[in-house]
């Protein structure tokens, strides 16, 4: 287990600079919006990880409610925590990019608004964990929220899409005029961020295991 974690860490440290090289040197500068478009690679990669993390939390929440093992609860919590981090990155990079291309920091577009709602759901999830003292209840309550939150995100997306939309729809148009080199850089960035996510989740999982170990050791010491 330790060797697997170390291998992921080393791989992440190597792949992140590679992704930077692909984004800044390999992919051509976009003709219309210029150098600002470089933010796209990290924006899309963070969005992928942010939404993927919610899916992991959802699956682990179901497994926890069925099997009641610590592993699925820890993984759900770790994934939500790292998911919130990447979700914040999506919102911040998105705002910077929006300011330079659309001229406004924020628009009520479905993808932006859905990401923001995802951010709120993740925050609520982490608050709920923090404010529930009993560890068994913590797992059950947060699993319920993890499941409901996952079902809610697509409904949020479609409702906001009916309301208004201006976000460029790159994926549905099958790459929509994107240079093949840009596509490559995007996929490298996605791979790099996924590795970073796995590496961070591993660390959070080990912390959770240690916390539990010392919590029980403490209890044993107190009870003699």
């Amino acid at each position, binding site marked *: 287990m330790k060797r697997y974690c170390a291998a992921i860490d080393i791989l992440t440290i190597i792949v992140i600079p590679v992704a930077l090289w692909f984004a800044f040197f390999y992919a051509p500068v976009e003709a219309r919006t210029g150098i600002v478009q470089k933010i796209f690679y990290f924006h899309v990669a963070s969005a992928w990880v942010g939404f993927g993390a919610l899916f992991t939390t959802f699956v682990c929440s179901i497994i926890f*409610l069925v099997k009641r093992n610590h592993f699925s609860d820890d993984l759900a919590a770790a994934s939500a925590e790292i998911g919130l981090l990447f979700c914040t990155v999506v919102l911040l990079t998105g705002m910077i990019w929006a300011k330079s291309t659309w001229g406004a920091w924020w628009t009520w577009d479905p993808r932006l608004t859905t990401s923001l*709602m995802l951010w*709120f*759901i993740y*925050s*609520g999830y982490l*608050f*709920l964990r923090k*404010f*529930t*003292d009993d560890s068994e*209840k913590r797992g*059950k*309550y947060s*699993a*319920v*929220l993890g*499941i*409901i*939150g996952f*079902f*809610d995100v697509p*409904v*949020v997306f*479609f*409702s*906001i899409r*009916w*309301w208004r939309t201006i976000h460029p729809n790159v994926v549905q148009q099958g790459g929509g005029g994107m240079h093949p080199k840009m596509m490559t850089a995007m996929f490298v960035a996605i791979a790099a961020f996924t590795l970073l996510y796995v590496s961070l989740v591993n660390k959070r999982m080990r912390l959770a295991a240690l916390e539990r170990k010392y919590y029980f050791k403490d209890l044993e010491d107190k009870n003699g």
Partner: protein
Amino acid sequence: MLKFIKVVFALVRKDISLEYRTKEIMNSMFVFAFLVVVVFSFIFDPGEHEQAQIAGGVYWMALIFSGLLGLGKSMQSEITGGNIEALILSPISRNAIFFGKVISNLIFMLVMQLVMLPLFAALYEVNIVSHVLMIAVIAGTTYGFVLLGTLFSLIAARTRSREIMLPLLLLPVLVPLILAAIQTTGALSAGDPPEEYMKWLRLIFVYDIIFTSVAAVVFDAVTEE
């Protein structure tokens, strides 16, 4: 199935007779909703034209904020006396407990709206229920709100800082429902053609169906000790 309905009915009767004697939930919800409506009216100049468009939003916001208070209070009375523990220990289906609570909360909120609607119409000079479909909008939205609200209020009541937990968990999940309610109310009171509001009305009911099934499945996990 018949036993299930009987249990739900008994639980609803218990809540209603309790509320009939104390009137704590209804009174505090109503006064708070009234207050929100009055405070929101400072945003508009009197007789402004957009009022009809925005009024629906104000109405739903007032209802949701007061509903958050009412739900918290309604669940608190179950927790403090240890009533919910007694219910969970009794040999009845957990889903009956849940839907009993949902139905009594739904009744409280619908009765409150019977008083709110004429009052709101008088203050804002807008008749929200100008179309017969508005009854479906009110029923569907209130049900969806109360459904997830009851589930989350049971969770929030057992955490530290429960007052802040309920809105923090509930509001992000309610976003599609609130949006759909505001859109349908606006379109119906402006007399827009059906294609403007039918999809939103469908969304309200799809939302209710999805989360009724999800809540029925996960509720066991919330109550078990």
